[in-house]
């Protein structure tokens, strides 16, 4: 699906990674590892087109990235550090807006997605009244809606409780089983039932 060739990134005159090449096939879970500040988020932002501070090439379905960016944005779901949840809107309004932005978020309806993330009964209260974990769940409800084959998730489990994490892991397994793929960073010991997680350690590739 996604192929990375000879990626080089430097920040404040410090090389984060160089000669980084890998590819992600359908049905794979790839976990990006590294210490704090090793460039995990930077790498994910490069992969999803939010950063151009790099040298090297990206290919989507074997085609060079800038040309197929429109198609890529349709087939890719990104959940960043910041959940993209507006605190003065309700959970339902937030998801409705996300659906407007990305019409591919149409697998189930919003009420069902909110039920799946355990926010049944909270759909019509403004998000600032929700706890941090619940706000995170509103952002992650997108995963239940998404039909995109590639998911890029930056620390998706922050602030989630144990059960919430287990549910998301099961969801990832389901997504991968259907031929989707996932790239994510997390400090949590990832356990996707029935699948082997591939690890890419940025500390090791930094100076190679």
């Amino acid at each position, binding site marked *: 699906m996604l192929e990375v060739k000879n990626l080089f990134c430097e920040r404040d005159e410090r090389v984060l990674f160089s000669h980084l090449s890998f590819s992600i096939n359908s049905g794979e879970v790839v976990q990006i590892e590294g210490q704090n500040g090793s460039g995990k988020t930077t790498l994910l932002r490069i992969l*999803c*087109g*939010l*950063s*151009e*501070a790099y040298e090297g090439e990206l290919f989507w379905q074997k085609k060079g990235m800038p040309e197929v960016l*429109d198609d890529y*944005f*349709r087939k*890719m779901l*990104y959940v*960043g*550090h*910041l*959940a*993209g*949840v*507006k*605190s*003065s*809107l309700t959970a339902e*309004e937030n998801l*409705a*807006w*996300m659906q*407007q*932005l*990305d*019409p*591919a978020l149409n697998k189930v309806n919003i009420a069902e997605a909110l039920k799946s993330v355990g926010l049944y009964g909270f759909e019509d209260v*403004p998000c600032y009244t929700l706890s941090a974990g619940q706000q995170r769940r509103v952002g992650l409800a997108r995963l239940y809606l998404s039909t995109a084959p590639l998911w890029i998730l930056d620390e998706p489990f922050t602030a989630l409780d144990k059960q919430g994490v287990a549910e998301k892991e099961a969801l990832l397994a389901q997504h991968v089983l259907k031929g989707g793929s996932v790239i994510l960073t997390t400090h949590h010991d990832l356990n996707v039932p029935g699948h082997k997680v591939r690890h890419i350690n940025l500390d090791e590739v930094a100076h190679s």
Partner: protein
Amino acid sequence: MNFFIAAVRRELILALRRRSDIVNPLAFFLMVAVMFPLAVSPEPKFLAQVAPGVIWVAALLACLLSADGIFRSDFDDGSLEQILVSPQPLVLVVLAKVLSHWIISGFCLALMSPLLAMMLFLPSEGLGALILSLLLGTPTLSLLGAIGAGLTVGLRKGGILISLLILPLYIPVLIFGAGTVQAGAMGLPIAGYLALLGALLVLSMMLAPFAIAAALKISVRG
């Protein structure tokens, strides 16, 4: 088109939930009209003479005051990133944001301006010119302000920088806007001034959305 309407609706709902965003520029606008006669002179003849300029400067600063926040909250909570990685064209989102910013700032200021005109003894012949010039001029202010807001949204303290960047661009609008009201108040034809304000609006409507979109990309990707 549906997407554009949904985007405008979202912005207006957000503004209604945070009333201070609407009230702030209007209160500032009114405050200037209240303070000015106290500080300078309450003489009606003098006030009538300076009213066009004072009202226009106040409107312009009120727009600038609120321009800083156009993209701020979307940047802070990650909504802007989501907009950038979505398949929807960024220019449409930008236009929707500018339109709703205009509705809550420029449009409301234009509606409120007759009150200020009365407080500053603007001759009644100038009233139509005042409202028309504000309706035609303030959308340009919102468009230009959004360029500055887009460029400074990634900075921690963009407040002063945006004024420095944008105020020089506001000057033509100010000159022709205040000129319209002055001409109107003296009973002269204002069509020429309005045409110029309209031309400025068309020009900025054609170019600014692309500049704003590019500025946002720089701010987020930088």
